[in-house]
């Protein structure tokens, strides 16, 4: 399999299948804490998947809840609802501040000798609605149908909402994602979006048989148009935990 980009992804993962081994002596890195945005949608399913891998995951409903988390999952749900609530509760600005590249102007706790690791940008994974929210652009932005869709705009993606039609067109498929798993990964698409265009910094991780991209990564940001949290296969959750600690 050809691993493109992200060369060092496999660090500390030689033992293969063992989910998120508790770091022993050679790797002093603390286990990551994953926040799961819990405004609305399938957040409990993500938390259960991370728990199954031995990782700590907690609900995030306010900007204060973002403190102490190393990563954030924006789950499936209704993108207009989640987008509006993000803005209403000030989470959009809080997430932008935490994902900005130079370490955020963290509180001047000012005890210089702090042994804390330098704050790194928040790793974020958006599934389905989360993919829409992370994109910079909507393919249907010219449409007058529906309420305005607030976007975080963190990834160089143009996406199309409800790209497959109505609920009757929701589907399950097995996808090849060689950087993520050495087997076909079961994927559930529910009123799903699709990536129409991706910038040069975006690495496509999986495509539909017709070639359309449905999983992608840009640095510490990951998106999937489908729902790994509705399947028994934790490959994408494990991949995200690796991405967080990489």
């Amino acid at each position, binding site marked *: 399999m050809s691993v493109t980009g992200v060369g060092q992804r496999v660090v500390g993962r030689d033992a293969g299948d063992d989910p998120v081994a508790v770091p022993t002596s050679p790797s002093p890195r603390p286990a990551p804490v994953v926040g799961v945005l819990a405004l609305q949608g399938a957040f409990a399913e993500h938390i259960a998947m991370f728990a199954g891998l031995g990782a700590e995951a907690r609900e995030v409903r306010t900007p204060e809840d973002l403190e102490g988390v190393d990563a954030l999952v924006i789950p499936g749900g*209704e993108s207009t609802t989640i987008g*509006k609530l993000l803005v209403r509760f000030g989470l959009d600005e809080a997430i932008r501040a935490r994902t900005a590249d130079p370490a955020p102007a963290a509180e001047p706790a000012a005890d210089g000798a702090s042994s804390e690791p330098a704050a790194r940008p928040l790793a974020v994974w958006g599934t389905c609605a989360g993919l829409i929210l992370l994109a910079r652009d909507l393919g249907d932005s010219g449409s007058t149908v529906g309420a305005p869709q607030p976007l975080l705009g963190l990834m160089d993606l143009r996406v199309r909402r409800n790209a497959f039609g109505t609920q009757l067109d929701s589907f399950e498929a097995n996808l090849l994602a060689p950087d993520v798993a050495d087997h076909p990964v079961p994927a559930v698409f529910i009123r799903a979006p699709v990536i129409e265009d991706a910038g040069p910094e975006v690495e496509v991780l999986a495509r539909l048989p017709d070639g359309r991209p449905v999983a992608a990564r840009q640095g510490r940001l990951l998106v999937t148009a489908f729902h790994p949290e509705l399947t028994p296969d934790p490959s994408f959750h494990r991949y995200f935990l690796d991405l967080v600690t990489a």
Partner: protein
Amino acid sequence: MTATVPTPVDASVDAPQTSTWTTKAGLARMLKGGVIMDVVTPEQARIAEEAGATAVMALERVPSDIRAEGGVARMSDPDLITAIKEAVTIPVMAKARIGHLVEAQVLEALGVDYVDESEVLTPADDRYHIDKHAFRVPFVCGARDLGEALRRIGEGAAMIRSKGEAGTGNVVEAVRHLREITGGIRRLQTLPREELMTAAKELGAPYGDVVRVAETGSLPVVLFCAGGIATPADAALVMQLGAEGVFVGSGIFKSGDPIRRGRAIVEATTHFRDPERVAAASRGLGAAMPGLDVAKLPAAELLATRGW
């Protein structure tokens, strides 16, 4: 299947499958923590979406008007459903009468995202519900207790809502039915395995589902609460009691200020464990819908008793 891109070849990657159980029950999972609002016009649908609804229920009359006007309540006009579908991007649900499989077929043909086989409409069949497994569209059904919920799931419902008493603006029946369901689940969890068959008999529910509920401590599908929610505090109440989301029927568009009330109920549903936020959401909403004392309703006017 003709792959036109150089994806690695793997025979185990098969053709996509639509309308699987996972996609049907999965859409309800995406609606969790949200508010599904009854709307009777495209304009109301837009207001609901703007307020933060996760889906709308398209119908001709809200339950309080059905109650007031009487007569036979049927599936809505397809033109209305289509107009509402075209007005919003969130999922659109619509109601079919209990047992009216052709109304359900029509709704599927219209491309609604969920069919509600609903006691709010006048039943078309006084003994049998629709075989919902036979449809590609997913169904939500009402239930007053665990047995009724598991019968509907056995027939293929991919989402359950506790019934409450629609169109009353009175949350007491919603609470009663929700507690019946969650309490029924807790009781099953305490039973030794040899008692589960008799429990299934007494519940009037499929044995396999009874065993599964006893083992997992939850329904195999998402559980929402409906029928009488009129305020942000009502919504937070039923969420604290174990609902995974709420349906609000007459409560929004029969109130003084639907957009503010809609937003407030959405916020209270998200922050249901945070009294300060529920308090903030409850300020200045204007008049709630007028309510009815359910205990004073004649038995013949109760909607929740419809369902077999």
